[in-house]
């Protein structure tokens, strides 16, 4: 039983990290109707920014994290303006391909700037092992989970309780009416993209010290994020969170009881099952949106 709990705990923490990446992606999809293949690169750049600020420029760690977050948001705004706004209104595949091109540019660009050497980010909270009730984990991981939860809670409040959040939800539901209601759609798009990108960058900031930073780390992450977004229902933030947690735990149990190589298949198999059974996502009620 002990090892089962250990695997579940491992899975929950991973799920927390997945949710940060997936929530940003699903938000951007809901409001802007864009699937951003380069989202994984924003995660990677978040991690590299911490490296630049904390290791190369030797700034205090907390400051480095905040700056990286802002950097991610800024990059998001730039990408929206440069790559996605010109393609507004075009068939979906155009944005998809443009975002793929972006992904290649950003990943290889980072490899050019930082060289492909893997990097380590020393964090003030070293992965000090803890043991509680027979379950092991590191202090760093606990912190990541706590911070992820805090961010998700904050985000949910933002989306549900603020005017901008309301505007976002309106645009996600019905774009034409949003114009009619006088919503500054351009501004909301920018904010949404910045926010979504900042979330991905934050995931990178949190995970950077835990893992190893390298230019292609975004590629693996983004594919899982897609699977989670579909499972939760595109544009559905609580759905993405739940799906992320389920995936984290499922992967952990599969890796533990069946085999780690097999774990990679879980994300997509689950996604396809959900698509067959409940295409609008696990947490959706009522009519499906854009299936």
């Amino acid at each position, binding site marked *: 039983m002990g090892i089962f709990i250990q695997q579940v705990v491992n899975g929950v923490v991973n799920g927390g990290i997945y949710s940060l990446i997936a929530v940003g992606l699903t938000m951007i999809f809901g409001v802007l109707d864009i699937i951003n293949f380069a989202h994984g690169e924003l995660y990677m750049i978040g991690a590299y920014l911490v490296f630049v600020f904390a290791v190369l420029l030797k700034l205090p760690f907390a400051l480095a994290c905040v700056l990286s977050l802002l950097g991610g948001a800024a990059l998001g705004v730039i990408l929206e303006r440069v790559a996605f706004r010109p393609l507004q209104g075009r068939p979906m*595949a155009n944005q998809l391909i443009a975002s*793929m*091109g972006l*992904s*290649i540019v950003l990943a*290889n660009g980072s490899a050019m700037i930082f060289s492909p050497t893997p990097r380590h980010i020393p964090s003030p909270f070293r992965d000090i092992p803890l043991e509680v009730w027979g379950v092991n984990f590191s202090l760093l991981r606990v912190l990541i989970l706590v911070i992820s939860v805090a961010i998700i809670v904050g985000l949910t409040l933002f989306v549900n309780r603020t005017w901008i959040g309301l505007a976002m939800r309106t645009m996600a539901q019905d774009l034409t009416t949003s114009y009619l209601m006088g919503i500054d759609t351009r501004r909301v798009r920018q904010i949404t993209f910045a926010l979504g990108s900042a979330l991905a960058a934050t995931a990178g900031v949190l995970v950077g010290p835990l893992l190893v930073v390298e230019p292609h780390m975004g590629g693996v992450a983004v*594919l899982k994020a897609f699977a989670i977004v579909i499972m939760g229902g595109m544009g559905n933030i609580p759905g993405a969170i739940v799906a992320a947690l389920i995936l984290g735990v499922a992967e952990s149990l599969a890796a533990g009881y069946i085999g780690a190589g097999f774990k990679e298949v879980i994300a*997509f198999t689950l996604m*396809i099952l959900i698509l067959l059974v409940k295409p609008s996502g696990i947490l959706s009620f009522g009519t499906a949106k854009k299936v």
Partner: protein
Amino acid sequence: MKDKPSAWLWWLVGLALAAGLPYIITDAYTQHLLILCCFNIVLALSLNLLIGFAGQISFAHAAFFGVGAYTSALLATRLGISFWLALPAGGVMSAVLSLLIGLPSLRLRGHYLAIATLGFQEIVVIVISQWVSLTRGPMGITGIPKPRLGRLTISALEHWYLLALALVALTVLFMIRVSRSRLALELLALRENEVAARSMGVNTVKMKLIAFTGSAFVAGLAGGVYASYINSIDPYSFTVWVSAIIILMVYAGGVGSIVGGIVSAVILTLLPEFLRPIAEDQFRMVIFGGVLILIIMFMPEGMAGFFEKIRGRLVPRKFPEV
């Protein structure tokens, strides 16, 4: 749908010129590139059947290519089956796989369809790389035998090119035939408006499945030829990124355009190779990514649409043909 004999003539001229290429350009490296172009043309055209005609999108094309390659390679290396039999077997295997993907995809559209097919693509690659007892996993399959035609073994580059070109010719023929048939009308109806098509009596389910299996079968055939040419295959030659590049070839050429598909496949195959002497490694990839973005931004209708516009300005037309 008028039958224009002059169009056929131009195609034959094109084919003859293409067949003569390796005898004019005798540099082995360029010959190898031409052969790779042929494979990509076949892949782009077969995907065009799905995207251009049926209006579906699929990220799983590399998986069909790979399944065809692996099936044919395994039959040849494990069971000693001749290339000419293993090849269609590969195509059939891919077609069967595509049914597995096509059936669940029936009620999906747009982004959902794109990501669902992406999921299938990933699953196929992971299964191939994990099922070591069958596929040797990441170690791949090596020593794939070359095809034999009577007493001739196809090993010289010129002969490989002709074989690949024959495959291209067959694919083009297939596409032209399809585009002039009633099938094309039904597929186009499906592409333009699925609901309207259904109300007109088009069996959209059957159309979608035909498009999926047709495009997969051709990709599978290409895979079998590719496996024998390269002589050793591994799961990582058939990843989602390969699918993405093929999708790009379809869009860059112009969705639904056969000639556009050929031109963009050639250009996008040669582009990274041309960039070799110009730019260092990672920068080469950055440029490639940049080119993708530029193409999609400034040529939204692809090259075919682009040339259409130019032609439209040079030669005014009265009635657009279908």
